[in-house]
């Protein structure tokens, strides 16, 4: 089986294909795209064989062209992901993804005494540096070095060394 086809998952006529997702991040990408209540077919495959990645995830969302803004959000936890817009079963456009400058909601602040954790406020981070990904909480101003390979619960694994 050719790795790029993702044939285990049925093709879609119109919509978006997100491929080359690191397996651990596939369900998180679903959450970021907030597909609850979406009425068209959504197919997801995970732990599919991939020559480049070993294992990968793929999501095909029928009837929805995701925006660049949504696609860029995915890169936070799935830097290898590719996003293609499909029209009439063919790739109409491949998106070039880039890390957003501001990250809303997706990441939880590492500081337990941050107001976002104490009073359940939606988080907002400014991206300070891309490699290694370093972000700053808009509220408590704590710097965090985000490990993009570990995304459990959207809590990055360690705060920046201080």
């Amino acid at each position: 089986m050719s790795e790029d086809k993702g044939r285990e998952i049925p093709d879609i006529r119109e919509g978006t294909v997100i491929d080359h997702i690191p397996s651990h991040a596939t369900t998180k990408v679903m959450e970021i795209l907030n597909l609850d209540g979406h009425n068209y077919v959504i197919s997801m495959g995970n732990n599919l064989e991939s020559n480049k990645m070993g294992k990968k995830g793929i999501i095909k969302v029928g009837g929805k062209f995701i925006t660049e803004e949504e696609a860029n959000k995915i890169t936070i936890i799935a830097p290898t992901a590719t996003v293609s817009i499909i029209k009439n079963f063919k790739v109409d456009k491949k998106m070039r993804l880039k890390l957003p400058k501001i990250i809303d909601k997706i990441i939880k602040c590492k500081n337990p005494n941050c107001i976002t954790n104490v009073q359940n406020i939606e988080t907002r981070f400014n991206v300070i540096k891309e490699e290694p990904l370093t972000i700053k909480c808009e509220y408590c101003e704590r710097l965090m070095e985000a490990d993009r390979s570990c995304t459990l619960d959207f809590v990055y694994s360690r705060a920046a060394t201080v």
Partner: protein
Amino acid sequence: MTGFKGRDVISIKDFSKEDILHILETSKKMESPTPTLLAGKIMATLFFEPSTRTRLSFESAMESLGGSVIGVADPATSSAKKGELLWDTIKMADAYSDVIVLRHPVEGSARLAAKSASGPVINGGDGANQHPTQTLLDLYTIMKTQGKIEGLSIAMVGDLKYGRTVHSLASALALFGCKLYFIAPESLKMPNYILSELKEKGVAYSEHEKIEEVIDKVDILYSTRIQQERFPDKEEYEKVKNVYIITPALFKNVRKNLKIMHPLPRVNEITPEVDELPYAHYFKQAANGVPVRRAIIALVLGKVE
């Protein structure tokens, strides 16, 4: 420089060098206040954490300009105790006043308050994060006593790891081309993220373990309390608590213009005999809180340009 009317004062990092200099200039004018400048204006003070100097100097500043003060002194008596969210508490205070001063133990609370309120919010300290008016009064004190900030040699001593005062002050001084000396035991050194920020800005700094190594070279010695409550391990605290005690014996060959500053309260890091020396400046520093806070309130209320 951005206009000040309606502006929040949450973090010193929100202010450019021009902004800071403008606040310091205005503070100088506010040494002799116009007693009717803020007549009819109301300041709400919401102090969810104990404070002596910050609260008193804010209230004194407001009253001396003819404004009035309403406040919650003890959160136990307010609806926060009943579980009201800070967002809602601020909405109410915003409706009852023209400007809000907030001190809160949770980091980021001031930024949240600024989003909730339509009027300006001044951060009087949010947990271990920011205390911008302290930094501004520190800068004002330096400028007033030395005639300038640019190019001075400034030593910071004590708890440089946990002290928010020294973090904010170091960031601000980075804008003024000062030479910085950091004196701390290994366990309380200036955090790496602050040092990298200084490096990026091309600030000249060096790290030391003894005050004696730098005391003769500096214009300002900024001492801080080693905060027992920050230590997870009490044994570690015992090891370092008496490392830097400033006594008159230290001041044999120092510069004539040297001033000792301290954000207060002090515990034992400066002995009472030092108070009598011409170098002691910490009580004057605390007094400078009033003109600086007058300036900040008047600026954000748009009563001075």
